[in-house]
């Protein structure tokens, strides 16, 4: 139906459609709007030709400009790597102590060490490096194998009781119970004596009895006074930090069955630069010596 009827108020043509006596005006979209719409269509066609756009079965059209966001990221990463290179070179060249002293290098190493820690170490030592039973807290000032930069770096690189590394840190505490070196009452007395070193013993007679047993069986590694020996990874028995727990039951279990915590040798998996950064980071957590 054609209609040239005009609306008396606006002077606009009507479409001829009437609903409930209301006539629809034929008000076309503004010209600027239509033109913008056409421009966007042209733009879209151009875009599809220039940029990756159409999904195919196994790939996509790549576009004549050859752009890809992945390539862009690769460029960004290369740039970032290049910007870091001067720090990397220096860290590779300098000793740990020198890195620690240089403000910028230190900051760089701590940041790098933190991210490497988050990937490789948190599983055992925890995100805040507080450890858990059997996994040492790296924030405190107790170090089984030494807490200066060099010693930390060696521990990280070669691990502890890790068979596949020749230079791994090794010490074997005998299982005094399982191996039937001491009897159960003897182990009880020894445990009481160990507790008495940090004034926690509740049985004076047992502790006295344990003293000789300690001197004979434990002192070679843990020392006469129980101060421990880092050369052998023997912890101090006098201080407030206990890797497995300080209650008597735990100590009896430790003496009976021994403990053999294992840490992998990260030198086999991480490059020397990362090990250095990790050492600086762990050292910076508050307990570094």
């Amino acid at each position, binding site marked *: 139906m054609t209609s040239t009827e005009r609306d008396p*108020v*606006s*002077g*606009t043509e009507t479409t001829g459609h009437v609903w409930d006596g209301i006539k629809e005006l034929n008000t076309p979209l503004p010209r600027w709007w239509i033109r913008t719409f056409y421009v966007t269509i042209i733009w879209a066609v151009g875009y599809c030709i220039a940029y990756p756009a159409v999904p195919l079965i196994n790939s996509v059209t790549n576009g004549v400009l050859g752009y890809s966001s992945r390539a862009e990221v690769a460029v960004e990463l290369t740039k970032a790597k290049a910007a870091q290179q001067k720090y990397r070179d220096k860290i590779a060249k300098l000793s740990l102590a020198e890195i620690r002293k240089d403000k910028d290098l230190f900051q760089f190493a701590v940041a790098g060490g933190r991210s490497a820690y988050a990937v490789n170490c948190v599983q055992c030592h925890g*995100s*805040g*490096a*507080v450890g858990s039973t059997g996994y040492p*807290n790296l*924030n*405190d*000032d*107790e170090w089984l194998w030494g807490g200066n930069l060099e010693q930390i770096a060696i521990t990280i690189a070669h691990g502890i009781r890790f068979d596949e590394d020749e230079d791994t840190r090794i010490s074997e505490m005998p299982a005094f119970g399982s191996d039937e070196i001491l009897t159960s009452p003897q182990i009880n007395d020894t445990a009481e004596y160990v507790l008495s070193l940090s004034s926690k013993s509740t049985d004076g007679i047992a502790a006295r009895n344990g003293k000789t047993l300690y001197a004979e069986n434990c002192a070679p590694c843990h020392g006469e006074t129980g101060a421990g020996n880092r050369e052998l990874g023997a912890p*101090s028995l006098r*201080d*407030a*930090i206990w890797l497995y727990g300080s209650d008597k039951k735990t100590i009896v279990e430790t003496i009976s069955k021994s403990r053999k915590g294992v840490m992998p040798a990260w030198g086999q998996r991480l490059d020397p630069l990362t090990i250095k950064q990790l050492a600086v980071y762990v050292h*910076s957590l*508050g*307990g*570094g010596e």
Partner: protein
Amino acid sequence: MTVGPISDAVDRIDAEAVNSKEKRSLYKARVKIFPKRTAGTFRSLKWHIMAVTLAIYYVTPWLRWDRGPYAPDQAVLVDLANRRFYFFSIEIWPHEFIYIAGLLIMAGIGLFLVTSTVGRAWCGYTCPQTVWVDLFLVVERWIEGDRNARIKLDKAPWSSAKVRKRLAKHIIWLIIALATGGAWIFYFADAPTLAQNFLSFQAPFVAYSTVAILTATTYVFAGFMREQVCTYMCPWPRIQAAMLDEDSLVVTYNDYRGEPRSRHQKKQSQLEAPIGDCVDCNQCVAVCPMGIDIRDGQQLECITCALCIDACDNVMEKVGRPRGLISYATLTDYNHSAAGQTSKTTFSSFIRPRTFIYFGLWSLIGLAIFATLLTRDRLDLSVLHDRNPVFVRLSDGSIRNGYTIKILNMEARPRLFTVRIDGLPGAIIAQAGLSASPTGQLYIDVDPDKQRQIKVYVTQPKGDIRDARTAFSFLVKDRNGPEQVRHETAFHAPDGR
């Protein structure tokens, strides 16, 4: 016999109030307005205000203010990159944004105060839209002539003369627009340096895009859209309409005096018909930049620029009648005058509870801002307690907590601060990576106008620990001055120590 005005002295202008109420149609395209030039009290007041506001806008970023070697020497600077705002001797950090918020609230209440007393004075005199439209009109008049000449030119077919005039007008408009947009960016960077970089095409892209956008908006708003910005785009006329009351000054046509208007005063007086002062010369319509007829009464479009008052006063003088047929008056004054009680505008309406409350609020906020600005700290401290781990047990049984401390040196000179703890018995403080301080306090120097973050360890011996959580404070003090801040935090220890 009533003596009417001598209307022969005045020509009637063929002007139409294109935006008057009955002509308002949703379907209508804009009808161009060609405001006629006028002279008088309000016109010269507007010239002066225009000069002052434009001067403030263009000159401000070029004022210098010496802040020493560590801070910029521009008096007014919004340093977005470094997140600082400088206003003469005042420097504002992002966390002090409350001052800006206070100023904005003051501006709001100030606008209420102004509106409730003198009506839409902001719109009529100081609004940038008004000022720049005025400026563009000056150029238009200068090149194309006054109202009639402009109408004629507009209707004339395209000729070389018309092209020349139009080209000249638009070029000058664009130059003004460019200068407007150009001046804006100098508030955001060191003006002389930026100007140099800008002209040598070394300024950052954002500078050019800002100038381009503001040039475009100035050119379009002041050159083409003009009164439409006020009528359709600006929310303020609606809000202001609600702010006005019967005691606010508005531009008023005193119809009790003017009506019945007549072009034929002599004839009317011979007929002994009643004669009003209005000679229906349409001057008030011709000068109106909003395209309305003030004789229709208060209208949304009226920005109270008062140019119709000037135009009418000139006519009244010519025809030998008292000025003020169109005048600033409150509705109350108008009603009194209409009832023949008084014919003068009294300013007693300025003092009433409403304005008193506005002024009180306004000045209270102002005083509060002023007082806090005078006494505010230029040293701030924030303390973040380590979350992971919350505490660390050391081999001797003591407990160590870690804190990240931020010291804000908000003065433009390097300062040395001492950091110590208060309220934690036996505890010692140490900066991470360094051994504990023997004096019990740390010495931290902070660069001028910067913040410094340090990691601090606080260790409390086993015997001194009482609770799982002990509140204590960090105290940071300017080593060479009296300024000191305290920040309360907590020391955590394991349960069952």
